[in-house]
């Protein structure tokens, strides 16, 4: 399945945001997404989550014959698997160009920089050596697979333990884990990739691009580096042009990022080692937080509300006390009463119109009851159409309810007058209308 192309609107939006030095997920230019490293039950199994990108690495070992030209060296094989499970863009079968490129970067970063000592993997020179294989599976692609894969691969290699082997003359014994403790690989240094995305012909640069940013970017540069500030791989590609200064700047940024990442990896490894030593539970089941819904989870984000609260209190102070509505009852004729008639209109809009309409109503009221009910419903219709209609329809039957409503409203008003936050100053209007209706209903 081909990936759905990104729309021009969205592309422009993302690019504009980047030009304004903003990122669509709210990160800063040099920020990584949340990185989480967890381990499986088995040794050499590691899952890395970088935001929503998820990568699993599993290391395994077997004994085989060494290469003719290097009889005393074991081999390290790194295989990156882009399964269709991770993204609809990945097709099953033959690896794509980008897949091969990423695999090569990974190989160069870890194997060619001699991160793992291969000579210590030799058992019998020229006959038997360990062949260590790291399979990196991408489980979910939300951008920047490269960094997640490199972290997963090197962490898994550091986490792996191979069975101990002893050689007695011609005899080679592989000890089971119960017999002898498995031994770790000798990892000299931990190279980690940092990906930079470039936009507008290299004018803007971002660290750790997510899926959308990746699709908009002009090109990327991958810098593989270890803690000792040694560059293990450098790969710049994809139809863009850079100058020397940009390359050097990237290597400087990478230095800082790599230090942070490696510290995190070390912490995770230590924590796992402690858990295993203490016989605590470990593995994926333990590392998954105890939420019922683990997919599409959203991390809680802190929002600073002090500014908003200040503004609100300022508004309240400036507003001053709300006018006390005068609800004088006017007895127009024996048996009829009117409340709220003839007061100043506090609705912000069409002050004059309303006023005149009200006056008209007043005149009509004395003529016929039915017409009056219609007339009163008119102004209310504008603001609260549903309620007004229902009033007009069954004004007779809902008499009591309306009286209650009015009372309630009046009470609310009196309490709100003191606190009054959101209640608009015109709150007397509905009450007035209801008052009228009550009168109409009574008639």
């Amino acid at each position, binding site marked *: 399945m081909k990936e759905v192309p990104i729309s021009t609107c969205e592309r422009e939006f993302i690019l504009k945001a980047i030009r304004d030095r903003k990122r669509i997920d709210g990160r800063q230019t040099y920020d990584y997404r949340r990185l989480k490293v967890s381990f499986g039950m088995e040794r050499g199994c590691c899952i890395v989550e970088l935001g929503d990108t998820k990568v699993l690495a599993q290391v395994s070992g077997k004994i085989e014959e060494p290469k003719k030209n290097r009889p005393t060296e074991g081999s390290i094989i790194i295989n990156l698997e882009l399964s269709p499970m991770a993204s609809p863009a990945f097709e099953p079968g033959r690896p794509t160009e980008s897949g*091969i490129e990423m695999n090569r970067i990974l190989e160069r970063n870890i194997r060619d920089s001699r991160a793992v000592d291969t000579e210590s993997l030799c058992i019998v020179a020229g006959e038997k050596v360990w062949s260590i294989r790291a399979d990196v599976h991408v489980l979910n692609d939300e951008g920047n697979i490269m960094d997640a894969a490199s972290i997963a691969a090197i962490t898994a290699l550091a986490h792996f333990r191979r069975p101990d082997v002893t050689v007695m003359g011609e005899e080679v014994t592989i000890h089971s884990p119960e017999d002898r403790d498995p031994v770790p690989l000798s990892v000299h240094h931990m190279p980690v990739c940092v990906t930079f995305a470039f936009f507008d012909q290299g004018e803007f640069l971002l660290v750790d691009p997510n899926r959308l940013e990746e699709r908009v970017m002009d090109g990327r540069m991958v810098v593989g580096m270890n803690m000792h*500030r040694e*560059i293990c791989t*450098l*790969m710049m590609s994809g139809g*863009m042009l850079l100058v020397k200064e940009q*390359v050097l700047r990237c290597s400087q940024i990478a230095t800082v990022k790599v230090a942070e990442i490696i510290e995190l990896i070390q912490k995770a490894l230590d924590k796992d080692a402690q858990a295993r030593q203490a016989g605590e539970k470990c593995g994926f089941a333990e590392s998954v937080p105890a939420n019922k819904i683990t997919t599409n989870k959203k991390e809680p984000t802190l929002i600073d509300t002090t500014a908003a609260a200040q503004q609100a209190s300022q508004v309240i102070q400036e507003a001053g006390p709300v006018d006390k509505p005068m609800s004088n009852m006017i007895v127009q004729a024996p048996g009829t009463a009117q409340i709220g008639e003839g007061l100043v209109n506090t609705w912000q809009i069409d002050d004059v119109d309303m006023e005149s309409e009200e006056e008209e109503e007043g005149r009509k009221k004395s003529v016929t009851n039915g017409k009056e009910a219609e007339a009163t419903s008119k102004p209310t219709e504008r603001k609260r159409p549903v309620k007004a209609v229902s009033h007009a329809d069954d004004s007779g039957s809902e008499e009591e309810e309306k009286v209650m409503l009015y009372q309630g409203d009046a009470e609310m008003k009196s309490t709100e007058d003191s606190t009054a936050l959101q209640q608009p100053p015109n709150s007397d209007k509905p009450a007035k209308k209801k008052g009228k209706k009550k009168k109409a209903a009574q008639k």
Partner: protein
Amino acid sequence: MCHKIRHPRYWLILPFKMAGLEIISDQGYRIDGRRSSELRKVCARMGVFTQADGSAYIEQGNTKALATVYGPHEVRKGRGKIQHDRAVVNCQFSMATFSTGERKSRPKGDRRSQEMSMHLRQTFEAVIVTELFPRSQIDIYVQILQADGGNYCACVNAATLAVIDAGIPMKDYVCACTAGFIQDSPLLDISYVEESAGAPFLTVAMMPKSEQIVLLEMNSRLHADNMEKVLDLATQGCKDVFAVLDRHVRDHVSESHALMTAS
């Protein structure tokens, strides 16, 4: 029983491997007698084939590469590749079976050559003015005849000449060069022996006039502080290569011009 084919300079490699790789002598000379910032001899020839729209042959020391360019022509095989606003660049890299010390079983299609093809494509997509040829395709075929280090560089340089020969407009020449860092000093234009010593080296393809980097690749470990030195040397190397290529192009054009006016 069976005759083992060795690298053309196997006799040279062997003693150095044994002597713990004395890449630079005390006098500051390298194995093949160069100074640290010297290029190998560059020989080039343009228009070596009649069928192709553009072709070139280059020798950089013992590394020899052949490049041919076809196009721009209509997009063949896979109309899905058509770009409505620019030409697609199709590159194929291959190594002759006799190019290396040990005979190559797969001249093309293995991971390394696929990667190389992709890098070549990316390089030339950035440099050729593809917007001038919408809905068309440019083919670049490169073959390494003898590999002695700096294969990618030889390919890029040969392909540049071939593209110029084909008359396809480019933003600038694109020149490539390697630079290594061995025994605490940067070395220009790494040969196979120096490459296999396991020292870090940088491959740079750039447009020499604007010093814009088109492709950058690095192997092995290099301290970030030494990066600038190596990059500067590689830039200088690219400019030197450019001077040589430019002279070749001008010679070639004036020669052909003279022939045309004579007849």
